[in-house]
């Protein structure tokens, strides 16, 4: 009996390999991107003249101190916000609205509280008129290890579980690009590390493009192929850094010399940028 169950579950696992995105899909091109808001009668500059090309299948982390416009960058790629100047293209087409080829995993509280975990994951599939949305969603909930929680409502799940459901919901529409806006930022340190490892395992099978916004240096280095640092005042692109850590990355990755070297460089850069806000505040009080 036990043996039969084992055989059955391993067969399911064989079926469970996610469908690869179409090869060559998921390229993102930003050209001369500037975003300004009008806020309380004043113009606020969120981004100035950003040029960035992301290749299909690349894992890019956007790093920077708070207020540098990194979430704005993600929102523009997602289609939630429009550029004031410049262009955003995905696979050559200008982004004009949000779409299921580039879903977003948010920081927290983005699951629909009136739907069970399974219905949350099935949402995008139902929007696409998927014939077996339920079965498909069950599969993706299983990929993040939450098959047993399919009938729970979000408020019955821990913060980490909610983020896993959010990840499954985005993966279920089988996108070519995954946009992640500090998805693990609200979790405790232990859970965050486990989530990072789970995300990498899924991505290594799948190889879709990922744009991952974070203010956590360690997270950016551990996950990304390339790190884009945004600066403050002005909010421009400060530099991009290739992460020369071999994949697959596991717990050992953080102990390597390459990790430490990059960490120190980025730490100093972010520190300089962050100091500007302190300096700027000081200037204001002097006036």
């Amino acid at each position: 009996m036990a043996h039969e169950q084992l055989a059955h579950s391993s067969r399911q696992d064989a079926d469970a390999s996610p469908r690869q995105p179409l090869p060559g899909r998921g390229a993102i091109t930003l050209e001369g991107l500037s975003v300004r808001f009008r806020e309380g009668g004043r113009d606020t500059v969120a981004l100035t003249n950003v040029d960035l090309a992301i290749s299909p299948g690349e894992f890019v982390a956007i790093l920077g101190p708070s207020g540098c416009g990194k979430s704005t960058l993600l929102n523009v790629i997602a289609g939630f916000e429009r550029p004031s100047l410049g262009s955003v293209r995905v696979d050559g087409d200008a982004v004009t609205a949000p779409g299921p080829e580039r879903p977003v995993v948010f920081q927290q509280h983005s699951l629909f509280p009136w739907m069970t975990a399974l219905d949350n994951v099935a949402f995008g599939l139902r929007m696409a008129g998927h014939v077996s949305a339920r079965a498909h969603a069950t599969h993706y909930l299983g990929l993040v290890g939450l098959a047993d929680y399919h009938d729970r409502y979000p408020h019955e799940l821990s913060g980490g579980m909610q983020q896993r459901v959010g990840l499954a919901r985005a993966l279920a529409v089988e996108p070519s690009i995954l946009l992640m806006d500090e998805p693990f930022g609200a979790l405790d340190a232990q859970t965050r590390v486990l989530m990072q490892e789970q995300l990498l395992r899924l991505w290594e099978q799948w190889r879709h493009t990922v744009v991952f916004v974070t203010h956590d240096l360690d997270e950016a280095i551990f996950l990304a192929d390339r790190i884009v640092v945004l600066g403050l005042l002005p909010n421009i692109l400060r530099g991009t850094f290739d992460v020369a850590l071999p994949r697959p990355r596991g717990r050992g990755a953080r102990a390597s010399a390459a990790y430490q070297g990059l960490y120190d460089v980025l730490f100093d850069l972010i520190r300089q940028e962050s100091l500007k806000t302190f300096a700027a505040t000081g200037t204001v009080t002097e006036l």
Partner: protein
Amino acid sequence: MRSRGRAALLGLTGIGLLLAGWTIAARKLDNSILLPPPTALLTGLRETVLDGTLVRDLAASLKRVLSGFSLAAATAIALVVVTVSFRPVRQLVMPVLALLRPIPPIAWVPIAILWFGLGDSPSYFVTAVAAFFPIFINSLAGVGIVEEQHLRAARCLGAGRLALIRFIYFPSALPNLFTGLKIGLGQAWMAVVTAELVAAQSGLGYMIELNRLQLETQRVLVGMLVIALVGALMTLSLSWAENLLFPWRQKYRRKGAP
């Protein structure tokens, strides 16, 4: 668990103190028309049950409150849909509603009698007026409280305008709509009794007014007690239904949000 038992004990003690104070006051006053003792409630209850008037009047009141309430709910929800969909309509009706809202339901009774005569109709009207405003205002507020992040999440998963209304706006507004229905039903129940005091020939309001004229004070008190019990039962059952229908709201409520 201990604090819940304690709360129940204190609650029962409160009711016990009320009954004790009432008994003492009734004994001192010694006037069964002005204030009969609590035991007279049982006599009154037996009389009104046996002669069938209690059941008849309760049924009449319930019929009126449910009719008026349904009418109000249908009108209020339809109006919310229209005002949300067409901005000019909102600007057109909001001042009118703001003007009518402070009029207490009982102030509508005389004009309702002029328009509809005595019978069921004025009670339907007054009940509907009383229930309309809480339902309208709460469901309108519900449409406003949709979370921007839920809209964004739905849009990036491929939801169009109609899907947003059906799967995001509607369920977001539902708990507030239900709160409106709950308050509206409570208001309607109070209003129906008020209307029946003057504008009807049956119902619990009519029953307590008739028995006042006949100096059957114990029956007046039975009527009041039934009004209280039915009102409390309505609120309790709707709160119970609310927890069943919107389980995710319990968490917010426990944290002190509405």
